[in-house]
């Protein structure tokens, strides 16, 4: 896509939304245009609901879309040339936040009677060894080393790895970054291999990081390991 084409497509998207809203205000939108506008509102509401990391994001997005529709019909939500698409999206974000607040209050009201039971069920288990072990690990050292290593990846590798860490499936990453589905796996695999090499190289000169790697992944460094009389290997600090 050339720069001229991309600018034209962006303008077309703006114009399409503007056209739907104008026709709605004039009362001459056909069913198809109404549904297209409702679908667009839903997508933007879902975006903001996910961005706010709301519980029940899809429900809140649908409720916000239904409420925004009322605003479109009564003329309080129209296209304004001075604020454009960004102004419209700010308005939608406010609507999602407002709906999230209403939803949260309603849920709290409905669940008021079962909260004590929920609390009892969510009490920490004193015998949960896994949680105890995880809490005692030196994650900070490992996170810092990984973050530093990520800077050495290519921009595309960085983006793909970070999106995967955000919890996106490779299929969704492929659609977003516009690369084939299979290539996402290749990019991830190459990036992980490079990260592993970089972190291991760093651990060779950083005993604390080496100890963390051993603790978390059971990785030992042959150059620093010695074997005692009983054949047990230990890592030298």
């Amino acid at each position, binding site marked *: *896509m*050339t*720069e001229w*084409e*991309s600018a034209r*497509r*962006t303008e077309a*998207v703006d114009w399409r939304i503007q056209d739907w809203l104008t026709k709605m205000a004039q009362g001459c939108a056909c*069913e198809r245009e*109404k*549904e297209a506008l*409702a*679908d667009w*509102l*839903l*997508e*933007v509401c*879902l*975006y*903001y*609901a*996910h*961005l706010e990391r709301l519980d029940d*994001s*899809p*429900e809140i*997005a*649908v409720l916000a*879309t*239904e409420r925004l*529709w009322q605003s479109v*019909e009564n003329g309080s939500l129209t296209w304004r040339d001075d604020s454009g*698409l*960004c102004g419209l*999206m700010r308005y939608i974000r406010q609507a999602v936040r407002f709906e999230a607040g209403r939803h949260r209050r309603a849920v709290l009201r*409905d669940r008021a009677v079962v909260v004590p039971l929920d609390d009892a069920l969510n009490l920490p288990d004193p015998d949960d060894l896994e949680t105890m072990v995880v809490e005692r690990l030196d994650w900070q050292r490992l996170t810092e080393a990984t973050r530093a290593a990520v*800077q050495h990846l290519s*921009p*595309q590798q*960085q*983006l793909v790895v*970070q*999106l995967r860490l*955000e*919890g*996106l*499936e*490779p*299929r*969704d*990453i492929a*659609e*977003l*970054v*516009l690369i084939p*589905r*299979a290539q996402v*796996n*290749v990019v991830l695999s190459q990036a992980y291999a490079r990260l592993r090499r970089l972190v291991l190289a760093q651990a060779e000169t950083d005993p604390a990081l080496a100890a963390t790697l051993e603790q978390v992944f059971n990785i030992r460094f042959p150059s620093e390991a010695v074997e005692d009389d009983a054949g047990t290997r230990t890592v030298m600090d």
Partner: protein
Amino acid sequence: MMQEPEQLWTDEDEQEFAIYRYAHGLMDAAERAAFEAWAAARPEALARLGAWARARCATRYLRMRIVDGAPRPELHLSPVVEGYGALELAPTRAVNRYAAGASQQATRRFLQTTSADGRVLLTLRAETNGDWRLTARYAAIGRWEPLGEDYVLVQTPHEPLAAPQCLLCLIVDLDSDAVRRRYLAWFTPDPDAPDCSVARLRLPDWHSEVALARLLFGVVDADAARWLTDAERRASRAAALDPDAQQRWQEWERRAPNE
């Protein structure tokens, strides 16, 4: 001359608009590359891209339908859904089979097809009481390809996919193009085919209410269950054949008691 990425998207509106344009494929290649370099080091931009991807994930199968002047959420299927496919539900048809020079007429009691991406093999068997038994096999490590009248699994080891969650089936009336029935089936590990997941349903006979129908199917995430009506959810649960799938429905309903 191309500007440095830091100089491109300075205020929040510009950043929001750039993220919107990137997520919707509205940037040219050079701008995409500059944007990727800019976004990779910004957690806020990554969170926004992630939010767009999640939003689009849901809108693949969820749309707003205008009912009595107001938009209402509705599950639907289109070719953008993973594992999308369609099967014409004509009445069971007779085929000729030839053996040792003789011919005999037999009624074909099953229909079979694969999804457009080759991931799902769908088999629909007619049962003697008029019901249908639907089996959908999802191949995470390969694709189903036709071989004569059968299908074989061709492995593609370089692109294994995550295990699927649910299969959405719509029975569409060909005359009116309206969706007559919606079923959601849970995928469970397939005991007969390693590396496959299977979803099984017993579908009640639909010929009494739809003469000519098309069955649309596609792989969706478990969130889709939120958008079934109570009646559709009850029918889907009643149609589930595997005990594991029944268990999944129980778990789902326990997590969503208000649904």
